[in-house]
């Protein structure tokens, strides 16, 4: 019955109610669709890093004056008693020439297994017998390299046995503009060791293993965990997203103010009615309930529409900016919609609180005399 009363009161000032609902719709849609878009953006970026969370990079500790990783360290790391792949990396920059064109490019020394472990081959094979090389996508394009081409690297001839696919952002090795030659042919020292552990849980164990073996006397190496880097990137995305949602929240705030406004108007217009209801036995809480229910109805109807719209809105914005969306309804999307809904209803009720409180606390006699 209170519900009916509230509904009828709202329909009495239909235009006003509709405007208030539109305000809530805009506010809820704004925060929810930005939330959904941000989440999708984060997901897309995180996916482009690929599956590197289980990677650990061992680097010489330059702070202590170590500039290379010695063979003994490589041996010790290979002995780490948990499943994983150990890839020592030798790196330097050399002059590379092909058909009279010269470039100064990064050259990595890896073994054949490491290539298949880390990258995908676009053309040819990963064959890295002595005198063979594999070219990154970018350098192959810029020098017009083909499978079978002969290039001169640091004064020695290598035959291209394969060309890599274009790679996204990486932290360990950036292969697009690099050439990979056999580890044994590479004159430089080992400058890093990439360790791919099969289980994420083994990372802690690996760190204490290094402390207990390699770094037992001197801090020879430091360890870069991909997981903590990824975590930090994700955290940054979450913060940016929260910030954007807070900005969108301003529109919800405006909607709240408009509800406050129309509810205050409505308490003033209905002063006499409030007096009548108090005279025939309504307690303060009854009046409070009626007005809060009106605010609640505005909030709920606006938020339902807003949340639904923003699932569609988030989809289109994501599609427009990122070009692709994996799925419309996943748990995070729904979570954001539910969150937006809750914010919308909350805003409406908080805005209705003061007018409702004022209505409830009118002096019955004064309200009744009001014309």
């Amino acid at each position, binding site marked *: 019955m209170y519900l009916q009363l509230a509904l*009828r009161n709202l329909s009495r000032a239909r235009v006003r109610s509709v405007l208030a609902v539109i305000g809530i719709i805009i506010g809820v849609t704004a925060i929810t669709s930005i939330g959904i878009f941000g989440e999708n953006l984060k997901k897309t970026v995180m996916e482009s890093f690929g599956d590197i969370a289980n990677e650990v990079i061992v680097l010489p500790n330059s702070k202590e004056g170590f500039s290379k990783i010695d063979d003994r360290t490589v041996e010790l790391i290979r002995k780490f008693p948990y499943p994983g792949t150990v890839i020592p990396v030798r790196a330097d920059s050399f002059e590379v020439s092909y058909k009279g064109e010269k470039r100064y490019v990064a050259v990595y020394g890896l073994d054949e297994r490491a290539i298949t472990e880390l990258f995908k081959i676009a053309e040819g094979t990963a064959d890295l017998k002595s005198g063979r090389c594999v070219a990154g996508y970018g350098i192959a394009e810029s020098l017009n390299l083909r499978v079978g081409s002969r290039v001169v690297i640091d004064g020695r001839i290598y035959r291209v046995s394969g060309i890599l696919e274009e790679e996204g952002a990486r932290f360990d090795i950036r292969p697009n503009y690099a050439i990979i030659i056999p580890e044994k042919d590479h004159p430089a020292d080992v400058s890093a060791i990439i360790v791919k552990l099969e289980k994420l849980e083994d990372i802690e164990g690996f760190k204490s293993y290094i402390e207990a073996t390699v770094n037992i006397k001197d801090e020879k190496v430091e360890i870069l965990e991909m997981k903590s880097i990824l975590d930090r990137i994700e955290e940054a995305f979450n913060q940016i997203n929260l910030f954007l949602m807070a900005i969108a929240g301003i529109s919800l705030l405006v909607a709240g103010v408009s509800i406050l406004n129309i509810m205050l108007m409505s308490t003033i217009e209905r002063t006499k*009615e409030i007096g009548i209801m*108090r005279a*025939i036995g309504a*307690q*303060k809480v009854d009046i409070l309930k009626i007005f809060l229910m009106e605010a609640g109805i505005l909030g709920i109807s606006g938020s339902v529409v807003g949340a639904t719209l923003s699932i569609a809105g988030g989809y289109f914005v994501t599609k427009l900016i990122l070009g692709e969306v994996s799925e419309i309804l996943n748990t995070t999307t729904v979570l954001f919609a539910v969150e937006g809904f809750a914010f919308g209803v909350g805003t409406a009720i908080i805005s209705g609180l003061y007018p409702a409180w004022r209505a409830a606390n009118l002096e019955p*006699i004064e309200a009744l005399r009001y014309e």
Partner: protein
Amino acid sequence: MKTVVFESVSKIYRTRYYQVVALEDINLEIERGEFIAVMGPSGSGKSTMLNLIGCLDKPTEGEIYIKGTPISGLRDHELTDLRRNTIGFVFQQFNLIPTLSALENIELPMIFRKAEAEERKKRAERLLEIVGLEDVADRKPVEMSGGQQQRVAIARALANNPEILLCDEPTGNLDSKTGEQVMEILSRLREEGVTVVLVTHDESLKRYAERVVRLRDGRIVDVSSVST
């Protein structure tokens, strides 16, 4: 026990710029089941007196007892309970809730009492019958004549079976014929044991009352019994 007792009651309205003595040193006892008319010129304090009985307001001085309970010490929610369970109001302006139908208006005091929906509906229908308006049950106040609205208002005042019915110029906005109908209903209620306090300045209505209290400038100037 007297239903209503005024014990040297004064009511002074103070505003920032002036003060009005609406009632001054009123002593009055109203018996249970009595039909009392309060008469006097405009501004003499009639409505103020009625609102005090109706627990809508408290006296500035003195004490009012409703069924033996002194009201000056009661809190807002206690006054509301008392009002809802003991008192029915009928106003000159009818004061129906415009968004509600006749039936719903009558149900409203029972809703505030938290009565069951079914009981509410049944009683509201019966009250409509008592005031002779079964056929307007679903109409909104704007779709009813003044007389019909006032009869609905009386039915609403009776919803929670009050012992005291307070009527502030109930016929003031009605023509004499419909006014008569309303008065007939009120006098029938008296016969059923309801205490009726009728504020009016229509001299012709005093024949319905057992006693007439005359007010002037906030004081009782005359109390007389009406012999029928």
